[in-house]
């Protein structure tokens, strides 16, 4: 199967679910062709609300729809959603409105548009809100199952999606389990926890490390909150060293979430791989090379960490 962006998988899943779950409504802020909510919009025009370039009103309106029993998916770029954090905090989280916030264009992986369009701090902010779950799938099958789970899950969820196509990671018989990490490759020297668009590269990095005689376990963390504490501790016990990989700022993201679990339960050495500053323009491939999120960059960081 060809590589596919998780935003595209999301658009397909939402259209399919719209048929089965009549309470689903979708809102977008003039980015439906980018978030892929357009597929739902075309199929169910009376359940789609174009809110214009006014994200905080979109989020608040979604909260109201949820309070009246609808299952609203409010879509925009991740960075534009968290720009309206105060509305998310009050109208969604503190109101406990069953809103699904869908933030696409996660990370430097979006490429040429540059920092202003890159979601790089969204996990940190959304993780801090009580009541919120944070989910970031890594391929087509996982995205589709996650979207279905989220639609039926009671409570606000932040779903983080990529602009760029992602290779298939999971097998065809894959079953998404909310809150559970997935061991993609076993190993005994180190565990690499990865999330979203960089899971595939982490897997390739694990294969490269194998050739160097380093046995790396690779784990996909699709649910960043609530995080799979049990598995994280188990991996620390079994492999000793831990590496985290994310296309997000290393402050507050997956790396921080993993370190919080370990510091409180089973302290071991952790290396966080991710973004430490603003992003910039360039092709996704060039950016991943420059910022060390390509397979060789990840493998190199792990090798140095294990020295």
């Amino acid at each position, binding site marked *: 199967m060809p590589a596919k962006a998780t935003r595209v998988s999301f658009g397909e899943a939402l259209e399919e679910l719209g048929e089965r779950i009549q309470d689903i*409504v979708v809102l977008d802020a003039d980015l439906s062709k980018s978030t892929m909510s357009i597929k739902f919009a075309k199929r169910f025009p*009376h*359940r789609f*609300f174009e*809110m*214009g370039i*006014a994200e*905080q*009103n979109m*989020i*608040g*309106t*979604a*909260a*109201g*729809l*949820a*309070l*009246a*029993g*609808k299952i*609203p998916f409010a879509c925009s770029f991740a960075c534009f959603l968290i720009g309206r954090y*105060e*509305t998310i*905090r*009050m*109208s969604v989280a*503190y*109101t*406990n*409105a069953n809103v699904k916030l869908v933030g696409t264009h996660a990370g430097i992986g979006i490429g040429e548009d540059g920092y202003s369009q890159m979601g790089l701090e969204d996990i940190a902010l959304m993780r801090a809100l009580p009541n919120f779950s944070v989910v970031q799938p890594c391929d087509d099958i996982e995205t589709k199952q996650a979207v279905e789970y989220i639609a039926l899950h009671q409570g606000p969820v932040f779903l983080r999606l990529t602009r760029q196509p992602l290779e298939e990671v999971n097998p065809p018989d894959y079953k998404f389990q909310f809150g559970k990490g997935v061991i993609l490759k076993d190993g005994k020297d180190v565990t690499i926890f990865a999330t979203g668009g960089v899971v595939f590269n982490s897997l390739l990095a694990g294969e490269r490390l194998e050739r160097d005689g380093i046995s790396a376990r690779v784990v996909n963390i699709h649910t960043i909150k609530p995080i799979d504490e049990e598995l994280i501790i188990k991996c620390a016990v079994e492999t000793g060293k831990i590496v985290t990989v994310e296309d997000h700022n290393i402050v507050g993201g997956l790396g921080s979430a993993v370190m919080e679990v370990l510091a409180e339960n089973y302290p071991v050495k952790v290396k966080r791989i991710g973004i430490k500053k603003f992003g910039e323009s360039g092709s996704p491939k060039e950016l991943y090379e420059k910022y060390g999120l390509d397979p060789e960059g990840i493998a190199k960081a792990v090798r140095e960490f294990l020295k």
Partner: protein
Amino acid sequence: MRNSLIDLKIIATKIRIDIIKMLNKAGSGHSGGSLSCVEILVALFWEKIKRTPENALSPDRDRFILSKGHGVPALYAVLAHRGVIPYEEIFTLRKINSRLQGHPSRLDLPYVEASTGSLGQGLSIAQGIAIAGKIDGKKYRVYCLLGDGEMQEGQVWEAIMSAPKFKLDNLCAIVDYNKGQIDGYVKDVMDIEPLSDKLRAFNWNVIEIDGHDFEQILSALDEAELVKGKPTFIIAHTVKGKGVSFMEDNHEWHGKAPNDEETKLALKELEEELNELLSQKVEVK
């Protein structure tokens, strides 16, 4: 059949008495903006929404969103007088472990409909509920009370732009235009005028009234129900701190609660007012 105007005035005065007592007991809170919106809330909850313990969470209920969350003492008192929460509970306002948070918290008390207190957000939520009502063909109406200072928030204008697009004639916004905010008069802090012209330009049905006159409030709410194809915005001119002479039109009382001495003075004035109304009611009979 409507409660007679004198009855509504009696209820409003009783609510004001409770607001003063609640704020005094709490030791903090927003006196001016709680007192200014009392007639609006009484008109809504007794004549339109007709909230009861039975319909308080019914899917078909009329909704009321208090976007100006700091006015919540008035809402708690109204909910108590409508029997939705126990009367004694209103004196737990702002106390530890109370459901009556300093600003409305739906997590603690679902009858407030939404958590507010960060200004500017309620109208968007009200709009979402109104859209859902349209999708489902429900008959309920959605009311949203905003503060005048709150009209300075950008999100309010995003919602003002969008509600007419969706032809939400089941949505009625009301601004408690008491002219004051924390730092001074609204016109000095950041003037919102010409407000009715702005709202009309955004395609709302606009009605301007005296927000302490029950006849005007009720007739505006009646008109709002009759107007089809667009939402209604009621500009309710009010007096901040209404009903207590030393609080009226004094923004020092925006975010302050009366001490024991001030409470005594305020209650004396309000109880005189209540007795006067009760004697008028006897005469009417």
